[in-house]
Protein backbone atom coordinates (compact mmCIF):
# COMPACT_ATOMS: atom_id res chain seq x y z
CA UNK A 1 0.00 0.00 0.00
CA UNK A 2 2.87 2.36 0.86
CA UNK A 3 4.43 1.72 -2.56
CA UNK A 4 1.19 2.54 -4.37
CA UNK A 5 0.76 5.72 -2.32
CA UNK A 6 4.34 6.76 -3.10
CA UNK A 7 3.79 6.21 -6.84
CA UNK A 8 0.52 8.11 -6.70
CA UNK A 9 2.34 10.91 -4.85
CA UNK A 10 4.90 11.16 -7.64
CA UNK A 11 2.21 11.23 -10.34
CA UNK A 12 0.05 13.78 -8.52
CA UNK A 13 2.93 16.06 -7.56
CA UNK A 14 4.14 16.08 -11.12
CA UNK A 15 0.52 16.49 -12.25
CA UNK A 16 1.16 13.64 -14.69
CA UNK A 17 3.69 15.69 -16.60
CA UNK A 18 6.88 14.32 -18.21
CA UNK A 19 9.13 12.94 -15.41
CA UNK A 20 12.24 14.64 -16.79
CA UNK A 21 10.47 17.99 -17.02
CA UNK A 22 9.12 17.64 -13.52
CA UNK A 23 12.58 16.77 -12.23
CA UNK A 24 13.94 19.97 -13.77
CA UNK A 25 11.14 22.00 -12.20
CA UNK A 26 11.82 20.43 -8.85
CA UNK A 27 15.54 21.16 -8.96
CA UNK A 28 15.39 24.70 -10.34
CA UNK A 29 13.24 25.94 -7.45
CA UNK A 30 15.59 25.08 -4.56
CA UNK A 31 18.69 25.99 -6.55
CA UNK A 32 17.17 29.42 -7.25
CA UNK A 33 16.44 29.67 -3.51
CA UNK A 34 20.11 28.98 -2.80
CA UNK A 35 21.11 31.63 -5.33
CA UNK A 36 18.99 34.19 -3.46
CA UNK A 37 21.08 33.50 -0.36
CA UNK A 38 24.26 33.75 -2.41
CA UNK A 39 23.25 37.19 -3.67
CA UNK A 40 22.12 38.36 -0.22
CA UNK A 41 25.41 37.21 1.31
CA UNK A 42 27.35 38.83 -1.52
CA UNK A 43 25.60 42.18 -0.94
CA UNK A 44 26.01 41.93 2.85
CA UNK A 45 29.74 41.10 2.58
CA UNK A 46 30.31 43.75 -0.09
CA UNK A 47 28.66 46.43 1.98
CA UNK A 48 30.13 45.26 5.27
CA UNK A 49 33.71 44.51 4.29
CA UNK A 50 34.08 45.49 0.65
CA UNK A 51 35.41 41.95 0.06
CA UNK A 52 32.62 39.58 -0.96
CA UNK A 53 34.70 36.37 -1.05
CA UNK A 54 31.95 33.89 -0.26
CA UNK A 55 34.20 30.83 -0.27
CA UNK A 56 36.22 32.17 2.66
CA UNK A 57 33.25 33.24 4.75
CA UNK A 58 32.44 30.78 7.57
CA UNK A 59 29.04 32.43 7.98
CA UNK A 60 28.24 31.85 4.33
CA UNK A 61 29.23 28.15 4.54
CA UNK A 62 27.05 27.87 7.66
CA UNK A 63 23.95 29.31 5.97
CA UNK A 64 24.51 27.57 2.64
CA UNK A 65 24.68 24.11 4.21
CA UNK A 66 21.68 24.87 6.46
CA UNK A 67 19.67 26.05 3.49
CA UNK A 68 20.64 23.04 1.35
CA UNK A 69 19.38 20.54 3.91
CA UNK A 70 16.34 22.67 4.69
CA UNK A 71 15.08 21.69 1.22
CA UNK A 72 14.04 18.41 2.89
CA UNK A 73 12.03 20.23 5.56
CA UNK A 74 10.14 22.53 3.21
CA UNK A 75 9.50 19.81 0.67
CA UNK A 76 8.50 16.94 2.97
CA UNK A 77 6.31 19.10 5.24
CA UNK A 78 4.47 20.39 2.19
CA UNK A 79 4.28 16.84 0.83
CA UNK A 80 2.46 15.72 3.98
CA UNK A 81 -0.07 18.43 4.72
CA UNK A 82 -1.02 19.27 1.14
CA UNK A 83 -2.31 15.70 0.67
CA UNK A 84 -5.45 16.47 2.68
CA UNK A 85 -6.09 19.77 0.98
CA UNK A 86 -5.34 18.68 -2.57
CA UNK A 87 -7.39 15.47 -2.32
CA UNK A 88 -10.21 17.27 -0.55
CA UNK A 89 -10.43 20.62 -2.38
CA UNK A 90 -8.66 20.21 -5.67
CA UNK A 91 -9.18 16.65 -6.89
CA UNK A 92 -12.14 16.06 -4.56
CA UNK A 93 -11.18 12.40 -4.24
CA UNK A 94 -10.61 12.27 -0.49
CA UNK A 95 -13.89 10.48 0.21
CA UNK A 96 -12.96 7.63 -2.13
CA UNK A 97 -9.43 7.26 -0.77
CA UNK A 98 -10.75 7.53 2.76
CA UNK A 99 -13.23 4.70 2.16
CA UNK A 100 -10.60 2.46 0.54
CA UNK A 101 -8.85 -0.17 2.71
CA UNK A 102 -5.50 1.70 2.96
CA UNK A 103 -4.62 3.21 6.34
CA UNK A 104 -4.84 6.97 5.81
CA UNK A 105 -1.75 7.64 7.95
CA UNK A 106 0.29 5.25 5.77
CA UNK A 107 -1.22 6.81 2.67
CA UNK A 108 0.10 10.26 3.63
CA UNK A 109 3.56 8.92 4.45
CA UNK A 110 3.61 7.22 1.06
CA UNK A 111 2.48 10.36 -0.71
CA UNK A 112 5.33 12.27 0.97
CA UNK A 113 7.93 9.69 -0.12
CA UNK A 114 8.28 11.16 -3.61
CA UNK A 115 9.11 14.49 -1.99
CA UNK A 116 11.98 12.86 -0.09
CA UNK A 117 13.42 11.54 -3.35
CA UNK A 118 13.15 14.91 -5.09
CA UNK A 119 14.56 16.75 -2.07
CA UNK A 120 17.56 14.38 -2.03
CA UNK A 121 18.35 15.23 -5.66
CA UNK A 122 17.83 18.98 -5.12
CA UNK A 123 20.00 18.97 -1.99
CA UNK A 124 22.78 17.10 -3.78
CA UNK A 125 22.65 19.54 -6.71
CA UNK A 126 22.70 22.54 -4.36
CA UNK A 127 25.66 21.18 -2.38
CA UNK A 128 27.54 20.33 -5.57
CA UNK A 129 27.00 23.90 -6.79
CA UNK A 130 28.29 25.21 -3.45
CA UNK A 131 31.43 23.08 -3.57
CA UNK A 132 32.36 23.51 -7.24
CA UNK A 133 31.13 27.03 -8.02
CA UNK A 134 31.35 28.80 -4.65
CA UNK A 135 34.30 26.80 -3.24
CA UNK A 136 32.59 25.88 -0.02
CA UNK A 137 34.79 23.48 1.90
CA UNK A 138 32.91 20.29 2.83
CA UNK A 139 34.75 17.41 4.45
CA UNK A 140 33.69 14.22 6.20
CA UNK A 141 35.80 11.29 7.34
CA UNK A 142 34.84 7.76 6.27
CA UNK A 143 34.06 6.89 9.89
CA UNK A 144 31.49 9.67 10.04
CA UNK A 145 29.50 8.45 7.04
CA UNK A 146 27.35 5.90 8.98
CA UNK A 147 26.68 8.51 11.64
CA UNK A 148 25.74 11.05 8.98
CA UNK A 149 23.32 8.57 7.38
CA UNK A 150 21.81 7.77 10.78
CA UNK A 151 21.34 11.49 11.49
CA UNK A 152 19.68 11.92 8.09
CA UNK A 153 17.24 9.07 8.73
CA UNK A 154 16.33 10.30 12.22
CA UNK A 155 15.92 13.85 10.97
CA UNK A 156 13.72 12.80 8.07
CA UNK A 157 11.54 10.69 10.36
CA UNK A 158 11.13 13.74 12.54
CA UNK A 159 10.18 15.95 9.57
CA UNK A 160 7.62 13.38 8.39
CA UNK A 161 6.18 13.19 11.92
CA UNK A 162 5.79 16.98 12.05
CA UNK A 163 4.23 16.86 8.58
CA UNK A 164 1.70 14.29 9.79
CA UNK A 165 0.77 16.55 12.71
CA UNK A 166 0.08 19.33 10.20
CA UNK A 167 -1.82 16.96 7.93
CA UNK A 168 -4.03 16.09 10.91
CA UNK A 169 -4.70 19.77 11.58
CA UNK A 170 -5.52 20.26 7.89
CA UNK A 171 -8.55 18.01 8.38
CA UNK A 172 -10.09 20.79 10.45
CA UNK A 173 -8.96 23.91 8.59
CA UNK A 174 -10.06 25.60 5.37
CA UNK A 175 -7.93 25.63 2.21
CA UNK A 176 -4.76 27.28 3.49
CA UNK A 177 -2.23 25.35 1.42
CA UNK A 178 -0.13 28.34 0.50
CA UNK A 179 -0.25 29.95 3.92
CA UNK A 180 0.83 26.67 5.48
CA UNK A 181 3.40 25.98 2.76
CA UNK A 182 5.06 29.30 3.42
CA UNK A 183 4.34 29.72 7.09
CA UNK A 184 5.24 26.44 8.76
CA UNK A 185 8.58 25.99 6.98
CA UNK A 186 9.00 29.74 7.56
CA UNK A 187 8.72 29.16 11.30
CA UNK A 188 11.47 26.53 11.19
CA UNK A 189 13.46 28.72 8.79
CA UNK A 190 13.35 31.53 11.32
CA UNK A 191 13.85 29.73 14.63
CA UNK A 192 16.04 26.70 13.80
CA UNK A 193 19.27 28.42 12.84
CA UNK A 194 18.92 27.50 9.19
CA UNK A 195 20.33 30.56 7.45
CA UNK A 196 21.77 32.37 10.46
CA UNK A 197 22.98 31.16 13.85
CA UNK A 198 20.58 30.98 16.79
CA UNK A 199 22.71 33.60 18.55
CA UNK A 200 21.41 36.28 16.15
CA UNK A 201 17.87 35.82 17.47
CA UNK A 202 16.60 37.56 20.62
CA UNK A 203 16.63 35.43 23.82
CA UNK A 204 13.04 34.22 23.50
CA UNK A 205 13.64 33.30 19.87
CA UNK A 206 16.68 31.24 20.86
CA UNK A 207 14.54 29.39 23.42
CA UNK A 208 11.97 28.57 20.73
CA UNK A 209 14.77 27.34 18.48
CA UNK A 210 16.20 25.09 21.20
CA UNK A 211 12.78 23.46 21.59
CA UNK A 212 12.59 22.47 17.92
CA UNK A 213 14.24 19.26 16.66
CA UNK A 214 15.19 20.72 13.26
CA UNK A 215 17.72 22.94 15.09
CA UNK A 216 19.58 19.88 16.36
CA UNK A 217 19.29 18.06 13.05
CA UNK A 218 20.91 20.88 11.08
CA UNK A 219 23.54 21.45 13.77
CA UNK A 220 24.50 17.75 13.72
CA UNK A 221 24.74 17.79 9.92
CA UNK A 222 26.94 20.89 9.93
CA UNK A 223 29.29 19.43 12.53
CA UNK A 224 29.60 16.29 10.41
CA UNK A 225 30.21 17.87 7.00
CA UNK A 226 31.82 21.27 7.64
CA UNK A 227 35.43 21.60 8.80
CA UNK A 228 35.61 22.19 12.57
CA UNK A 229 37.77 25.28 11.96
CA UNK A 230 34.85 26.91 10.13
CA UNK A 231 32.26 25.88 12.70
CA UNK A 232 34.46 27.43 15.40
CA UNK A 233 34.30 30.83 13.69
CA UNK A 234 30.51 31.04 13.99
CA UNK A 235 28.79 31.72 17.31
CA UNK A 236 26.06 29.15 16.83
CA UNK A 237 24.44 29.38 20.25
CA UNK A 238 24.85 25.59 20.65
CA UNK A 239 28.60 25.46 21.39
CA UNK A 240 28.03 24.15 24.90
CA UNK A 241 26.69 20.81 23.58
CA UNK A 242 28.86 18.15 21.96
CA UNK A 243 27.78 16.14 18.90
CA UNK A 244 26.56 13.18 21.00
CA UNK A 245 24.38 15.51 23.06
CA UNK A 246 22.96 17.12 19.92
CA UNK A 247 22.10 13.71 18.41
CA UNK A 248 20.55 12.54 21.69
CA UNK A 249 18.28 15.60 21.73
CA UNK A 250 17.37 14.92 18.11
CA UNK A 251 16.45 11.33 18.94
CA UNK A 252 14.31 12.29 21.94
CA UNK A 253 12.45 15.02 20.03
CA UNK A 254 11.89 12.73 17.05
CA UNK A 255 10.34 10.08 19.32
CA UNK A 256 8.15 12.78 20.87
CA UNK A 257 6.92 14.09 17.52
CA UNK A 258 6.32 10.57 16.22
CA UNK A 259 4.00 9.80 19.14
CA UNK A 260 2.39 13.22 18.87
CA UNK A 261 1.72 12.70 15.17
CA UNK A 262 -0.16 9.45 15.84
CA UNK A 263 -2.24 10.95 18.65
CA UNK A 264 -2.95 14.24 16.89
CA UNK A 265 -3.77 12.57 13.58
CA UNK A 266 -6.24 10.17 15.20
CA UNK A 267 -7.86 12.94 17.24
CA UNK A 268 -8.28 15.40 14.35
CA UNK A 269 -9.49 12.63 12.04
CA UNK A 270 -12.11 11.71 14.62
CA UNK A 271 -13.19 15.33 15.08
CA UNK A 272 -13.41 15.90 11.31
CA UNK A 273 -15.47 12.74 10.86
CA UNK A 274 -17.75 13.74 13.71
CA UNK A 275 -18.26 17.22 12.27
CA UNK A 276 -18.80 15.79 8.77
CA UNK A 277 -16.04 17.89 7.20
CA UNK A 278 -13.69 15.19 5.90
CA UNK A 279 -14.63 16.11 2.32
CA UNK A 280 -15.55 19.78 2.73
CA UNK A 281 -14.54 22.30 0.05
CA UNK A 282 -13.63 25.89 0.87
CA UNK A 283 -12.57 27.20 -2.53
CA UNK A 284 -12.95 30.92 -3.16
Amino acid at each position, binding site marked *: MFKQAAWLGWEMDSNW*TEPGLFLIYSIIKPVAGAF*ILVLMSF*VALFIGTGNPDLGKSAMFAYLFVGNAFFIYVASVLFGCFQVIQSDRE*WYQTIRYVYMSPINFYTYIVGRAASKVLLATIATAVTLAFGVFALHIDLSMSLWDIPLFLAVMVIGLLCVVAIGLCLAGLSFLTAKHTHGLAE*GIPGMFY*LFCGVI*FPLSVLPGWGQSVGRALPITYWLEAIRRLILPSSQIAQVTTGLEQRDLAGIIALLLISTAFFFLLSILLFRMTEYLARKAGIIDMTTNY
Partner: protein
Amino acid sequence: MTEPGFIRLNVRALFGRSYPRVIGGTRELSWIFFETVLPILSIAAYVFIYKAFLPPNPDQTMLDKVNSLVGYVVIGGTMTAFWLNVLWSMASQLYWEKEVGNLQLYMMAPMSRMALLGGMAVGGMFMTSTRAVTTLVVGVFIFGVVITIGNPLLILAVFFVTLIALYGMGMMFASLYLLYGREAWNLSALMEEPIFLLSGFYFPVKALGQTVAIGASVIPATLGLDALRQLMFPVSGFGTQFYFFSPELELAVLCVLAAVFLVLAKLSLGYLETLAKREGKLTTRHQ
Protein backbone atom coordinates in the same frame (compact mmCIF):
# COMPACT_ATOMS: atom_id res chain seq x y z
CA MET B 1 -36.84 42.67 -17.55
CA THR B 2 -34.43 44.74 -19.70
CA GLU B 3 -30.92 43.52 -20.33
CA PRO B 4 -28.14 45.65 -18.78
CA GLY B 5 -25.94 47.70 -21.11
CA PHE B 6 -22.41 46.56 -22.04
CA ILE B 7 -20.60 48.65 -19.44
CA ARG B 8 -23.08 47.91 -16.66
CA LEU B 9 -22.96 44.22 -17.43
CA ASN B 10 -19.19 44.10 -17.28
CA VAL B 11 -18.95 46.23 -14.15
CA ARG B 12 -21.43 43.86 -12.50
CA ALA B 13 -19.38 40.88 -13.67
CA LEU B 14 -16.25 42.49 -12.27
CA PHE B 15 -17.88 43.08 -8.89
CA GLY B 16 -19.48 39.64 -8.98
CA ARG B 17 -16.14 37.87 -9.47
CA SER B 18 -14.31 39.98 -6.90
CA TYR B 19 -17.10 39.45 -4.32
CA PRO B 20 -16.20 35.90 -3.21
CA ARG B 21 -12.58 36.90 -2.69
CA VAL B 22 -13.45 39.98 -0.67
CA ILE B 23 -16.25 38.40 1.36
CA GLY B 24 -14.68 34.92 1.52
CA GLY B 25 -11.84 36.34 3.56
CA THR B 26 -14.13 37.79 6.18
CA ARG B 27 -16.19 34.59 6.44
CA GLU B 28 -13.17 32.36 7.03
CA LEU B 29 -11.29 34.20 9.75
CA SER B 30 -8.58 31.53 10.06
CA TRP B 31 -7.46 32.84 6.68
CA ILE B 32 -6.10 35.98 8.38
CA PHE B 33 -3.71 33.89 10.48
CA PHE B 34 -2.63 31.55 7.70
CA GLU B 35 -2.28 34.17 5.00
CA THR B 36 -0.87 37.09 6.96
CA VAL B 37 0.90 36.00 10.13
CA LEU B 38 2.59 32.77 9.02
CA PRO B 39 4.19 34.09 5.80
CA ILE B 40 5.87 36.89 7.76
CA LEU B 41 8.06 34.31 9.49
CA SER B 42 10.06 33.46 6.37
CA ILE B 43 10.46 37.16 5.57
CA ALA B 44 11.75 37.68 9.12
CA ALA B 45 14.33 34.95 8.46
CA TYR B 46 15.68 36.91 5.48
CA VAL B 47 15.92 40.00 7.68
CA PHE B 48 18.12 38.13 10.14
CA ILE B 49 20.54 37.09 7.39
CA TYR B 50 21.62 40.69 6.97
CA LYS B 51 21.83 41.09 10.74
CA ALA B 52 23.98 37.94 10.95
CA PHE B 53 26.62 39.49 8.72
CA LEU B 54 26.90 42.57 10.97
CA PRO B 55 30.33 43.01 12.59
CA PRO B 56 30.32 42.62 16.42
CA ASN B 57 30.28 46.34 17.30
CA PRO B 58 28.68 48.11 14.33
CA ASP B 59 28.98 51.90 14.01
CA GLN B 60 26.09 54.14 12.94
CA THR B 61 27.05 54.03 9.26
CA MET B 62 26.93 50.24 9.28
CA LEU B 63 23.58 50.28 11.11
CA ASP B 64 22.19 52.63 8.42
CA LYS B 65 23.35 50.26 5.71
CA VAL B 66 21.72 47.29 7.40
CA ASN B 67 18.52 49.30 7.95
CA SER B 68 18.33 49.85 4.21
CA LEU B 69 18.93 46.18 3.44
CA VAL B 70 16.32 45.10 5.98
CA GLY B 71 13.98 47.64 4.40
CA TYR B 72 14.71 46.07 1.02
CA VAL B 73 13.61 42.70 2.40
CA VAL B 74 10.43 44.18 3.89
CA ILE B 75 9.47 45.89 0.61
CA GLY B 76 10.31 42.68 -1.25
CA GLY B 77 8.20 40.67 1.22
CA THR B 78 5.28 43.03 0.59
CA MET B 79 5.59 42.50 -3.15
CA THR B 80 5.96 38.72 -2.65
CA ALA B 81 2.35 38.64 -1.45
CA PHE B 82 1.14 40.18 -4.69
CA TRP B 83 3.34 38.02 -6.90
CA LEU B 84 2.10 34.82 -5.25
CA ASN B 85 -1.46 36.02 -5.64
CA VAL B 86 -0.85 36.73 -9.33
CA LEU B 87 0.57 33.23 -9.82
CA TRP B 88 -1.86 31.16 -7.81
CA SER B 89 -5.06 33.19 -7.92
CA MET B 90 -4.81 34.80 -11.35
CA ALA B 91 -2.58 32.84 -13.70
CA SER B 92 -3.73 29.41 -12.55
CA GLN B 93 -7.32 30.40 -11.92
CA LEU B 94 -8.92 29.70 -15.31
CA TYR B 95 -7.23 26.30 -15.38
CA TRP B 96 -8.63 25.56 -11.92
CA GLU B 97 -12.05 26.84 -12.93
CA LYS B 98 -11.95 24.37 -15.81
CA GLU B 99 -11.06 21.52 -13.48
CA VAL B 100 -13.92 22.29 -11.09
CA GLY B 101 -16.37 22.80 -13.97
CA ASN B 102 -16.93 26.57 -13.87
CA LEU B 103 -15.14 27.50 -17.07
CA GLN B 104 -17.98 26.51 -19.39
CA LEU B 105 -20.31 28.73 -17.37
CA TYR B 106 -17.91 31.65 -17.79
CA MET B 107 -17.65 30.97 -21.52
CA MET B 108 -21.42 30.88 -21.95
CA ALA B 109 -22.08 34.02 -19.87
CA PRO B 110 -22.60 37.23 -21.87
CA MET B 111 -19.94 39.41 -20.17
CA SER B 112 -16.39 40.01 -21.41
CA ARG B 113 -13.86 37.53 -20.07
CA MET B 114 -11.63 40.53 -19.34
CA ALA B 115 -14.24 41.72 -16.80
CA LEU B 116 -14.07 38.31 -15.18
CA LEU B 117 -10.29 38.38 -14.93
CA GLY B 118 -10.49 42.00 -13.76
CA GLY B 119 -12.80 40.90 -10.96
CA MET B 120 -10.35 38.21 -9.93
CA ALA B 121 -7.58 40.81 -9.92
CA VAL B 122 -9.52 43.33 -7.82
CA GLY B 123 -10.58 40.65 -5.32
CA GLY B 124 -7.05 39.24 -5.25
CA MET B 125 -5.54 42.66 -4.63
CA PHE B 126 -7.94 43.21 -1.75
CA MET B 127 -7.16 39.84 -0.14
CA THR B 128 -3.45 40.31 -0.62
CA SER B 129 -3.38 43.87 0.68
CA THR B 130 -4.01 42.54 4.18
CA ARG B 131 -0.85 40.48 4.05
CA ALA B 132 1.14 43.22 2.35
CA VAL B 133 0.15 45.82 4.93
CA THR B 134 0.92 43.40 7.78
CA THR B 135 4.39 42.79 6.34
CA LEU B 136 5.02 46.52 6.09
CA VAL B 137 3.77 47.20 9.62
CA VAL B 138 5.88 44.37 11.04
CA GLY B 139 8.89 45.70 9.15
CA VAL B 140 8.51 49.16 10.59
CA PHE B 141 7.50 48.31 14.16
CA ILE B 142 9.25 45.00 14.85
CA PHE B 143 12.40 45.37 12.77
CA GLY B 144 12.61 49.13 13.24
CA VAL B 145 12.97 49.92 9.56
CA VAL B 146 13.15 53.67 9.00
CA ILE B 147 11.35 54.64 5.78
CA THR B 148 11.67 58.09 4.24
CA ILE B 149 8.60 59.27 2.34
CA GLY B 150 9.99 62.09 0.21
CA ASN B 151 7.68 61.88 -2.79
CA PRO B 152 4.46 60.13 -1.75
CA LEU B 153 2.68 60.68 -5.07
CA LEU B 154 5.48 59.06 -7.03
CA ILE B 155 5.57 56.16 -4.55
CA LEU B 156 1.83 55.61 -4.97
CA ALA B 157 2.09 55.89 -8.75
CA VAL B 158 4.92 53.34 -8.89
CA PHE B 159 3.09 50.97 -6.53
CA PHE B 160 -0.23 51.00 -8.37
CA VAL B 161 1.27 50.88 -11.88
CA THR B 162 3.41 47.94 -10.74
CA LEU B 163 0.28 46.17 -9.48
CA ILE B 164 -1.60 46.84 -12.72
CA ALA B 165 1.34 45.52 -14.74
CA LEU B 166 1.69 42.46 -12.48
CA TYR B 167 -2.00 41.59 -12.61
CA GLY B 168 -2.04 42.30 -16.36
CA MET B 169 0.74 39.73 -16.65
CA GLY B 170 -1.36 37.36 -14.52
CA MET B 171 -4.37 37.89 -16.81
CA MET B 172 -2.22 37.04 -19.81
CA PHE B 173 -0.87 33.94 -18.09
CA ALA B 174 -4.41 32.83 -17.22
CA SER B 175 -5.16 32.16 -20.89
CA LEU B 176 -1.74 30.69 -21.63
CA TYR B 177 -1.98 28.31 -18.66
CA LEU B 178 -5.22 26.94 -20.08
CA LEU B 179 -3.41 26.14 -23.30
CA TYR B 180 -0.55 24.45 -21.42
CA GLY B 181 -3.03 22.29 -19.52
CA ARG B 182 -1.61 20.22 -16.73
CA GLU B 183 1.75 22.00 -16.79
CA ALA B 184 0.00 24.98 -15.18
CA TRP B 185 0.62 23.93 -11.58
CA ASN B 186 4.29 23.31 -12.25
CA LEU B 187 4.66 26.57 -14.15
CA SER B 188 3.37 28.52 -11.17
CA ALA B 189 5.63 26.60 -8.83
CA LEU B 190 8.54 27.29 -11.16
CA MET B 191 7.86 31.01 -11.11
CA GLU B 192 8.29 31.43 -7.37
CA GLU B 193 11.93 31.25 -6.24
CA PRO B 194 13.44 31.82 -9.72
CA ILE B 195 11.43 35.05 -10.03
CA PHE B 196 12.27 36.07 -6.46
CA LEU B 197 15.88 35.69 -7.56
CA LEU B 198 15.66 37.44 -10.93
CA SER B 199 13.55 40.36 -9.69
CA GLY B 200 15.66 40.92 -6.58
CA PHE B 201 12.85 40.47 -4.07
CA TYR B 202 15.32 40.30 -1.16
CA PHE B 203 18.39 42.12 -2.46
CA PRO B 204 19.08 44.99 -4.86
CA VAL B 205 18.55 43.65 -8.38
CA LYS B 206 21.69 45.37 -9.67
CA ALA B 207 23.72 42.79 -7.71
CA LEU B 208 22.78 40.36 -10.50
CA GLY B 209 24.67 42.51 -12.98
CA GLN B 210 23.33 45.12 -15.39
CA THR B 211 22.59 42.71 -18.26
CA VAL B 212 20.65 40.18 -16.19
CA ALA B 213 18.79 42.98 -14.42
CA ILE B 214 17.73 44.53 -17.72
CA GLY B 215 16.48 41.13 -18.92
CA ALA B 216 14.59 40.64 -15.65
CA SER B 217 12.88 44.02 -16.12
CA VAL B 218 10.25 42.35 -18.26
CA ILE B 219 8.84 41.17 -14.92
CA PRO B 220 7.14 44.31 -13.54
CA ALA B 221 8.18 43.53 -9.96
CA THR B 222 11.85 44.12 -10.87
CA LEU B 223 11.50 47.78 -11.76
CA GLY B 224 8.66 48.36 -9.27
CA LEU B 225 10.78 47.13 -6.37
CA ASP B 226 13.86 49.07 -7.43
CA ALA B 227 11.89 52.30 -7.83
CA LEU B 228 10.07 51.86 -4.50
CA ARG B 229 13.36 51.16 -2.71
CA GLN B 230 15.01 54.21 -4.20
CA LEU B 231 12.07 56.36 -3.18
CA MET B 232 11.68 54.92 0.32
CA PHE B 233 15.38 54.62 1.17
CA PRO B 234 16.94 57.64 -0.55
CA VAL B 235 19.73 57.71 2.05
CA SER B 236 20.60 54.03 1.88
CA GLY B 237 23.91 54.22 3.72
CA PHE B 238 25.66 52.51 0.84
CA GLY B 239 25.13 55.24 -1.72
CA THR B 240 23.56 54.69 -5.09
CA GLN B 241 25.85 51.89 -6.26
CA PHE B 242 23.00 49.34 -6.17
CA TYR B 243 20.36 51.58 -7.78
CA PHE B 244 19.27 50.55 -11.26
CA PHE B 245 17.59 53.34 -13.31
CA SER B 246 15.93 56.53 -12.03
CA PRO B 247 12.44 56.00 -10.47
CA GLU B 248 10.86 58.23 -13.12
CA LEU B 249 12.28 56.16 -15.96
CA GLU B 250 11.28 52.95 -14.20
CA LEU B 251 7.72 54.29 -13.80
CA ALA B 252 7.58 55.09 -17.52
CA VAL B 253 8.72 51.56 -18.43
CA LEU B 254 6.19 50.12 -15.98
CA CYS B 255 3.40 52.09 -17.68
CA VAL B 256 4.43 50.57 -21.01
CA LEU B 257 4.58 47.08 -19.47
CA ALA B 258 1.11 47.52 -17.93
CA ALA B 259 -0.38 48.52 -21.29
CA VAL B 260 1.42 45.73 -23.16
CA PHE B 261 0.34 43.02 -20.71
CA LEU B 262 -3.30 44.13 -20.73
CA VAL B 263 -3.36 44.12 -24.53
CA LEU B 264 -1.66 40.72 -24.63
CA ALA B 265 -4.18 39.43 -22.06
CA LYS B 266 -7.05 40.58 -24.29
CA LEU B 267 -5.45 39.01 -27.37
CA SER B 268 -4.71 35.69 -25.69
CA LEU B 269 -8.26 35.52 -24.31
CA GLY B 270 -9.59 36.13 -27.81
CA TYR B 271 -7.35 33.37 -29.17
CA LEU B 272 -8.55 31.07 -26.44
CA GLU B 273 -12.20 31.73 -27.28
CA THR B 274 -11.55 31.05 -30.96
CA LEU B 275 -9.83 27.82 -30.04
CA ALA B 276 -12.70 26.90 -27.75
CA LYS B 277 -15.20 27.30 -30.56
CA ARG B 278 -13.05 25.55 -33.17
CA GLU B 279 -11.95 22.49 -31.18
CA GLY B 280 -14.81 22.26 -28.73
CA LYS B 281 -12.68 20.65 -26.04
CA LEU B 282 -11.41 23.61 -24.06
CA THR B 283 -13.52 22.71 -21.08
CA THR B 284 -12.58 19.04 -21.11
CA ARG B 285 -11.14 18.36 -17.67
CA HIS B 286 -7.91 16.61 -16.62
CA GLN B 287 -5.95 17.35 -19.82
